[in-house]
């Protein structure tokens, strides 16, 4: 029993050698046959790698917002400008912000935000940019270091001082290579003194350039530029990752209470949890990646059909050889194995080249700045596994055809 097993194992190895030799004999044909699998595996592996890269990039962008953030939007924010001063009660007020800061203990920092787009004029140059009214904690919340100078203080917020911290892009557009510190920039004809410059941060979510902005105290923005009484949103930083949902609930409860919302009424504000954004984006890119990978996987099927086709041709061509082998005592399973090994070798060979190509594509794509695609071991294993299955599946029919040949008919075959 054991001896029969070892001898059939030994023979399997020798049979593999016959199969390899047959493939080597038809090098060009083998390569062309494997091409389908090569392309299929290469696309699966590279799509998965690019998908991972995209996911990482998005994660980077989400975390470039800062960490552990809750963002509270006023629901009437779309009509805010029109409703300004009209006393609509559903607005988020600065008192709300104060209350949150005071009562929700896990809130480390809160920055009300007002944004507008305006022309900034300095040194005779004109540049349309985003003006963000924020609190001094803004930079800490966004994890955004200064390149030079300093951030405005609470005192400057209280006095609605005309001071500005300038984004790196905006500084370049307005001042070129010159140091903007101490310079004056005019926004809506109002002079602001530049006291600090932000480090470059690159593209944010949606690709908008975060470096093109001027940050000023929110009080200044509201009183002097927009005339609004309410912030459009408040960014809250929570002290730890684990407290995010608890904090979200507390803030919600507090705001509902402050806005006198009865149980049956809906929130008049929205809270976005940074973690939720990240998770959502993750799951979207994930499913997209798998979808595309799956479509690419279909080409493996096409590659498999190519293998089956060539194996059928090969079996027909070698009918006399098969007849001879059977005549001198090859068992049907020896012949089956010989041709199965051939097709599996073809598909695994295709798989290996495909994986190498996938790595190549991934390496080429990583030349794109801020993009880091990476080939996962999982996708390589899956690609190889599928190539193997394709080899077995599509090689089986031709191999069985060979194994079932009648020796005399095979030997007579012209």
């Amino acid at each position: 029993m054991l001896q029969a097993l070892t001898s059939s194992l030994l023979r399997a190895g020798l049979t593999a050698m016959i199969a390899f030799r047959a493939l080597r004999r038809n090098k060009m044909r083998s390569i062309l046959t494997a091409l389908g699998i090569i392309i299929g595996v290469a696309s699966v592996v590279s799509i998965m790698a690019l998908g991972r890269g995209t996911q990482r990039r998005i994660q980077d962008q989400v975390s470039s917002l800062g960490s552990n953030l809750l963002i509270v939007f006023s629901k009437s924010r779309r009509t805010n400008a029109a409703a300004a001063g009209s006393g609509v009660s559903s607005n988020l007020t600065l008192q709300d912000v104060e209350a949150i800061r005071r009562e929700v203990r896990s809130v480390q920092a809160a920055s009300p935000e007002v944004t507008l787009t305006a022309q900034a004029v300095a040194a005779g140059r004109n540049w349309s940019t985003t003006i963000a009214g924020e609190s001094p904690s803004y930079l800490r919340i966004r994890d955004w270091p200064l390149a030079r100078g300093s951030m405005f203080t609470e005192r400057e917020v209280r006095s609605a001082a005309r001071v500005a911290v300038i984004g790196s892009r905006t500084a370049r557009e307005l001042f070129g290579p010159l140091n903007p510190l101490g310079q004056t920039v005019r926004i809506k004809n109002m002079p602001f003194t530049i006291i600090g410059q932000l480090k470059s941060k690159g593209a944010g979510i949606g690709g908008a350039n975060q470096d093109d902005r001027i940050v000023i105290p929110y009080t200044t923005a509201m009183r002097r530029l927009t005339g609004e009484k309410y912030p459009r949103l408040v960014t809250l930083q929570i002290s730890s990752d684990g407290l995010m949902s608890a904090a979200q609930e507390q803030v919600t409860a507090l705001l509902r209470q402050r806005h006198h919302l009865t149980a049956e009424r809906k929130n008049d504000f929205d809270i976005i949890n940074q973690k939720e954004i990240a998770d959502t984006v993750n799951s979207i890119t994930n499913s997209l990646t798998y979808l595309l990978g799956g479509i690419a996987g279909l080409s493996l099927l096409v590659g498999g059909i190519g293998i089956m086709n060539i194996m059928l041709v090969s079996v027909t061509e070698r009918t006399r050889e098969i007849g001879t082998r059977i005549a001198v005592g090859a068992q049907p399973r020896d012949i089956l194995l010989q041709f199965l090994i051939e097709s599996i070798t073809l598909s695994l060979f295709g798989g290996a080249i495909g994986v190498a190509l996938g790595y190549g594509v991934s390496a080429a794509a990583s030349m794109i700045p801020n993009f880091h695609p990476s080939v996962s071991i999982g996708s390589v294993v899956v690609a190889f596994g599928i190539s193997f299955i394709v080899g077995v599946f599509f090689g089986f029919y031709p191999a069985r055809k060979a194994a079932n040949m009648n020796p005399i008919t095979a030997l007579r075959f012209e």
Partner: protein
Amino acid sequence: MSTTVIELTDIRKTYRTGDVEVHAVNGVSLSIKPGEFVAIMGSSGSGKSTLMNMLGCLDQPTSGSYLLDGVNVAKLGRAELSRLRNQKLGFVFQSFNLLARTTACENVELPLFYTNPHVPLRERRQRAIKALEKVGLGARLYNHPNQLSGGQQQRVAIARALVNEPELVLADEPTGNLDTRTSIEVMGLFQALNDAGITVVMVTHELDIAAYCQRIIVMRDGRIIRDDFNKARIFASDQRAALDASEQHASLS
């Protein structure tokens, strides 16, 4: 051990091509005992190869029974038939059937490759070389069939049939492509095998080749029309000596 190696009872093989039926073998009954040396003769198309293929378990008869060593071959599956061909039978084909692009040595090793239990590579090689030396091809071990003459290819085919030390050697015109001297060598080989107790059945067109055998069967139209003991049997050793003498004579004169 049964008393007959081959026991055929009313064997028929009918080929149907379109509406035409060809009775290639049309009712052959025959028994061959261990150690016999049988020649099958007959005109072209008389069904010799068809009969041989059935004897060699390569083809199944349309009807009739075939007992090989007392075993009813019709009852065996494909795998068992393969094992039988591999271990009990040596078949020399009329058209050699060597693997192309494969050396003589590897061609001869082929049956050993499929032998159970496994024969190690070194032993396979040694036995193949020995078999090739026996047929006088010791100097052509690594030639491919297309680098060998017809006669040499034939001898490779014979070596392949002998390599696994079969009990029964079936040869379909093993001397069809050979010159007189090589024919004598090959017949000497078969006689030596036969002397060692191996049963040999061979097809030949030539009476002087059949003369080496003990028993001569003549076929016509798929039937056996004569089955005689060979009273005037000749021996390869004598023939070789006679040939040497006549060649010496030719070169002297």
